[in-house]
């Protein structure tokens, strides 16, 4: 198991999981963007990006705003 920060909360995760898998496990269906350690992870690289211990991940979506 590895420990990461996910949207500001500590989270345990199995080792070797990539971003695509994470989104799948989280059952995220809305459009979203992912940042890892303050860098955007482009959609095309989700599957190729393995999450490591200590990674800080943000998953964001669109909300109303002015």
């Amino acid at each position, binding site marked *: 198991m590895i420990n990461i920060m*996910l*949207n*500001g909360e500590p989270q345990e995760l199995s080792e070797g999981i990539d971003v695509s898998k994470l989104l799948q496990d*989280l*059952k*995220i269906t*809305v*459009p*979203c*963007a*992912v*940042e890892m350690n*303050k860098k*955007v992870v*482009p*959609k095309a690289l989700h599957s190729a990006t393995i999450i490591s211990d200590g990674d800080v991940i*943000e*998953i*964001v*979506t*669109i*909300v*109303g*705003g*002015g």
Partner: protein
Amino acid sequence: MANFSEPLKLGPYEFNSRLFVGTGKYETFELMQEALEASGCEVVTVAVRRERLYDKQERNILDFLDRSKYTLLPNTAGCFNAEDAIRTALLGRELLDIEWVKLEVLADTKTLLPDPLGTLEATEKLVKEGMTVLVYTNDDPVMAKRLEEVGATSVMPAAAPIGSGQGVLNANNIKIILERANVPIIVDAGVGTASDVTVAMELGAEGVLLNTGIASAKDPVRMAVAMKHAMEAGRLAAKAGRIPRKLYATASTTMEGRINA
């Protein structure tokens, strides 16, 4: 009848409507949808926020925004330093697959006034990232010019503080900004009612962005129609060449030929 329309160009985009409308604060997505439709806007601002991972909302705002009709403009609302704003802007780009941003770097949660230094820094960096930056700023003509110089596509001075509903508080500053600008000036924030939009456009602005003025009106849809007309009114009046102000009186009817004259 004569066609007075003149599209507004912003980076790669071109719009016929000069009203930019936000999506915050509506009671329901349906009401938002109706108000946006009523406003005639073509650009709609949205914000970027963390997905609620375990307490998911049933419905996503994007399902209520027809992207064949509206160009979405992600903003960086709620960012209080350049770094957060840049990250948020880049996430917005990734999310919406769109190369522009309405940049806001705010100074504090109480006044929501823009932070000039963070704003300048973030503008410069996002421009270097290749983004089309529409940047929210105060009404200081000096900062407006600096933001233009570092590559902002549009400078967006505040009429008044966000959500204050006071309209253009300092027409003098807006006039100086307009006199010296080489990029489109879009008045942003502080619009309370329709005449505020008209006044901003009569000063010579190229557009107006607003959210609370519509979303928090008692009847948002009706106010949206009002804003649409106010925009047309202001834009046309600015181009039509108004009469000068005088202390008094020029008769609109000839004095000749009166009975008993």
